[in-house]
Every structure is written in structure tokens, then in C-alpha cells.
């Protein structure tokens, strides 16, 4: 208990915890779970956007989309590395993803049927992610905090790019504007769900707040997101699909904010539990990539061993 108190004191002094520092097992486990989930989300998150790479309607957009999906892979890589500093291997985390033991963000279990979704994902999904992630740049665990700084920088670029894509659609023909509106209709509520259950129903929050892994509650972040996003929708000339949405000047300590309608928590839990439209397809795609790639990874390993053996043999001569 003395150790725990000392650890908490370090956290309270806003000192960063580093890989070789002693840490409570719960802290380590929470971080492994959270960073792993986060990494998996980046990896699975390549799929819904990857879906449109071969069909992007202009070469400029195609290149931007490729670069974006590549960035997501890159985020996955930093995050797996950050998790590895806590003593878990990438392979182990991958197995947990594929077996369904580890989760990833439910937002990626929605399909991307139209090109407009490439804009909406950038704007709303990356926007919500940033809202969640900016506080993580000050997370108490050093490697995670540093990874997040890099991730957040790239994500805001993606968000602007997505918004810009929607501007093009909204300045285009009626079909294009309709496509954008339809896309927002489909993604608005799932984006709000990205902040997780209401604070009252959130299981991991309290301890995480204390350890400064988390710094704001789900509902606080969700409110911030709504307040930031609704005016952007207005600028696009699009409607947010919430009939109960209205400006409330009392909110946010009198600075004003939006009241919003009730979230469909039945849908939320259905998707979290693996029964969203794309859950099975996503895991199947990842499993296929992993299984089909096994011979490649084996060959790379075998080659490295052969090469090392040859070098040893040469050195011995």
C-alpha cells in the first residue's frame, strides 16, 4: 500500500510513468487493454476506408485516401510498440483481436456504402477520436502519451481532409449533396456512441481518472464534440439527424451548448457485443490477412535465421 500511495503521488505530481518504472498491476493491465484496443481500432479501421481505395472518384482523392489508410496502419504500429513497453507482444495482441477476446472501436462495424462516407469518417469519426485522444496526450504513461501526440497531429489533418471532401460534395450537384446528407444520417449517432456509455453506466472510468489515464468523462467529451460539430454541419448546409437537438444557452456554465436526443443504447450494445452489420466481416477480413500471411512471416523469420547462421559461420572461419 505504501507503493500504491507513492505511485499515486507521482501521478498527482503529473510525473510521467516510464516502461521500467515500477507500477501497480492494475495500472499495467488497464493500459495494456486500452492501448491494445486503441491499436486494434487503427488496424480494423483501415478496412472501412480501404473499401474505397480502388473506387475513389479522382486520383487526388485516391492518393489522399491511400495516405490516410496508411497513416492508420502507422498509428497501429506506434500503439502496438507503446503496448509492448508494458510486456505484451504484438503477436499476442493480434491473437486476442482475432479470437474476439480484445475489442476495437465499434464505429468500424458500420459499413461504408458510399463515397461520402470517406468524408464523414474523416470529419465525424476522426473528429470524435481526436476529442477522445487529445487528453491522452497528457496521459500519465509516457510512451502512450508520446504516441498520442503524433497520432493526434495526423488525425486533425485527416479530419480537415474529410471535411474538405464533404465541402466538395455539398458544393456539387444535388446527387452529391444528398449523398453527403445520407452519410451524415448514418454516421451521426454511431459517432456519438464512440464516447461510450453515459458516465453513470461506465465501468472502467473512475480508477482511470484517478490514474490520469483518462481525464474527462464520456459525457463531457461527447458534449464538447456535439458543440464543436453542429456548427460545422450547418456550414455544410447539412442537417444533423436529431430532431431533439437544440441550443441551450444555460449549458456549459452559461456559455451555452446543445441539448441532444437520447442515444439508442440497444444498438450500441448490440454492436459492442459483436452483432453489428460488419463485425463478422471485419474479423473475417483480419483473420484472412493474418492466416494468408503466415507463410510470409515464417519465410521472413527463416531467412533471417539462415542469414544470421551464415554470418556466425563466416565469423568463425
Amino acid at each position: 500500500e505504501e507503493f500504491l500511495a507513492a505511485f499515486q503521488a507521482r501521478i498527482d505530481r503529473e510525473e510521467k510513468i516510464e516502461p521500467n518504472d515500477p507500477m501497480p498491476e492494475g495500472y499495467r493491465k488497464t493500459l495494456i487493454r486500452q492501448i491494445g484496443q486503441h491499436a486494434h481500432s487503427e488496424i480494423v479501421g483501415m478496412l472501412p476506408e480501404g473499401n474505397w481505395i480502388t473506387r475513389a472518384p479522382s486520383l487526388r482523392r485516391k492518393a489522399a485516401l491511400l495516405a490516410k489508410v496508411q497513416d492508420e496502419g502507422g498509428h497501429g504500429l506506434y500503439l502496438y510498440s507503446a503496448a509492448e513497453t508494458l510486456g505484451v507482444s504484438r503477436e499476442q495482441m493480434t491473437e486476442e483481436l482475432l479470437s474476439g477476446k480484445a475489442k476495437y472501436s465499434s464505429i468500424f462495424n458500420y459499413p461504408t456504402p458510399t463515397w461520402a462516407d470517406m468524408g464523414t469518417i474523416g470529419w465525424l469519426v476522426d473528429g470524435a477520436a481526436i476529442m477522445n485522444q487529445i487528453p491522452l496526450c497528457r496521459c500519465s504513461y509516457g510512451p502512450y502519451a508520446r504516441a498520442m501526440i503524433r497520432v493526434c497531429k495526423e488525425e486533425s489533418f485527416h479530419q480537415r481532409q474529410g471535411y474538405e471532401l464533404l465541402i466538395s460534395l455539398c458544393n456539387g450537384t444535388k446527387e452529391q449533396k444528398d449523398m453527403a446528407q445520407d452519410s451524415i444520417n448514418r454516421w451521426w449517432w454511431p459517432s456519438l456512441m464512440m464516447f461510450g456509455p453515459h458516465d453513470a453506466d461506465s465501468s472502467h472510468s473512475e480508477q482511470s481518472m484517478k490514474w490520469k489515464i483518462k481525464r474527462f468523462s464520456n459525457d463531457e467529451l461527447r458534449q464538447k464534440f456535439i458543440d464543436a460539430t453542429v456548427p460545422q454541419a450547418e456550414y455544410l448546409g447539412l442537417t444533423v439527424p436529431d430532431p431533439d437537438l437544440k441550443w441551450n444557452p444555460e449549458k456549459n456554465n452559461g456559455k451555452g451548448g446543445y441539448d441532444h436526443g437520447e442515444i439508442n443504447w440497444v444498438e450500441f450494445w448490440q454492436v459492442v457485443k459483436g452483432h453489428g452489420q460488419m463485425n463478422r466481416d471485419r474479423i473475417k477480413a483480419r483473420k484472412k490477412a493474418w492466416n494468408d500471411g503466415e507463410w510470409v512471416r515464417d519465410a521472413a523469420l527463416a531467412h533471417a535465421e539462415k542469414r544470421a547462421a551464415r554470418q556466425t559461420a563466416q565469423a568463425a572461419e
Partner: protein
Amino acid sequence: MSVALFNALLELGDDHLILGHRVSEWCGHAPLLEEDLAMPNMALDNIGASRNIYTYAGEVEGKGRDEDQLAYLRLDREYKNCLLVERPNEDFAHTMLKQLYFSAFMEPYWQAALSSSDETIRGIAGKAVKEMAYHIRHAGEWVIRLGDGTEESAKRMKEAVEELTPYVEELFVMSADAQECADDGILPDREALRAQWNQTVANIFDQALLELPEVKYPQLGGRTGHHGEEMGFLLAELQYVQRAYPGMSW
């Protein structure tokens, strides 16, 4: 003149676009995460080069067609890419070998194009030559790893070599248009790059324990728009949005 240059640029642009398309199909499905970063990189390089080439082709043509009109709005028989680049990905061995074969040709091609009489070509070449050197390295390393890896990987590499080598010859073929541009010093002579290609590939194959088969019957046809059956499906995807929503900007 400008007709020949336009056509020769389409040959180049289509090669890069279609190869970039193929390698981009891997995105999110690579055998390891590092390759989920490396393959989009190669796709970006190829597609990036195609954009510069098409833009210039549009200028040369002088009919106001931009990169997207050239990339998206032609019919199957009007694409001039060589057959090599349109071949399906099959497995990772095929994909890496295809990238190697293509970049082992394009690297010396762009190298030679650095002394083109045409300033735009020199500009495109300056950027592309470095990218192609990286593709040779990256794909070449994989060919070596897989060729000298496990029994399984060696078998797959050999199959890829057997299957793709007949498509190499077309890289060296000079169409009348390409010849005209070479005669005018605008684009390199493809024929002249054979020795360099052989050198690059032989060097890698040597380490990969692979042999380059002799090809008695090379596969030709792409330059005259005689594509294989996979090409139509590739184009159906590539063009779908542009075709379904004609005349819009994105």
C-alpha cells in the same frame, strides 16, 4: 509529334496507374503490419507518377483533358498499359515480384529520362527515379527473403517467376509512338535498358536462389489495348463512381 508523345505518355501513365491500383488492393490485408505501410507507399508512388504523366499528356494533347479524364474515362481497349502490371495480385510472392520486375525497368528508364530534351519529362523523372530505386530495394529484399526462406515460400516464388516472366518482354517493346519520342530525344529507348534490367534482377535472383527462365513466347498486347480478362473488372471498380455520377467534381 504531339500525338506520338501523347500516346507514349499514356503507355507510361497507364503502367503506373494500373500497377498502383493492383498494389493498393492489398491495403489493410497485408501479411504483416509493416507491409500495410510499405505497399500503400508503393501505390502512392505509382499513382503519384501517373498523375504527373497524365497531366502532361493532357497538356500535350491540348483538348483540355485532365488527369482524371484520362485515368477514368477511357474504355478497356484504350488503355495502353503492358500486361505485366494488370496481372492479378495472387499472393505476396507474385505481388513483390511484379513490383521488382517493373521497378527494375523503370529505375534505369527514369535515369535515362533525366537527360530528356523535354523539361517536364526531366522533372517527372527526377522524382520517380528515387522512388523506383526504393521499390527495387524493398521488393528485391522480399524476393530474396521468400526465395531463400522456407520450402513453401521458395515454391511460391518459383511459381511467381514462372508465371510473370513471360510478361517482362513487353516492357522493352518500342511502339511506333515510343520510337518517335526516342528518336527525338524526349523519352528513353526501352530496348536499350535490357542489360540494366538483367543485371538488377540477376543480382537479386542470385541471392534469392532463383533462376530466370528463358522465355520463348513472350506475352504481348497491352500496348495495343489487348488486355486480359481481369482488366475489365479492374476498370469496373476504378471507374464506377465517375461512370455512375457523370460529369461531377469530387
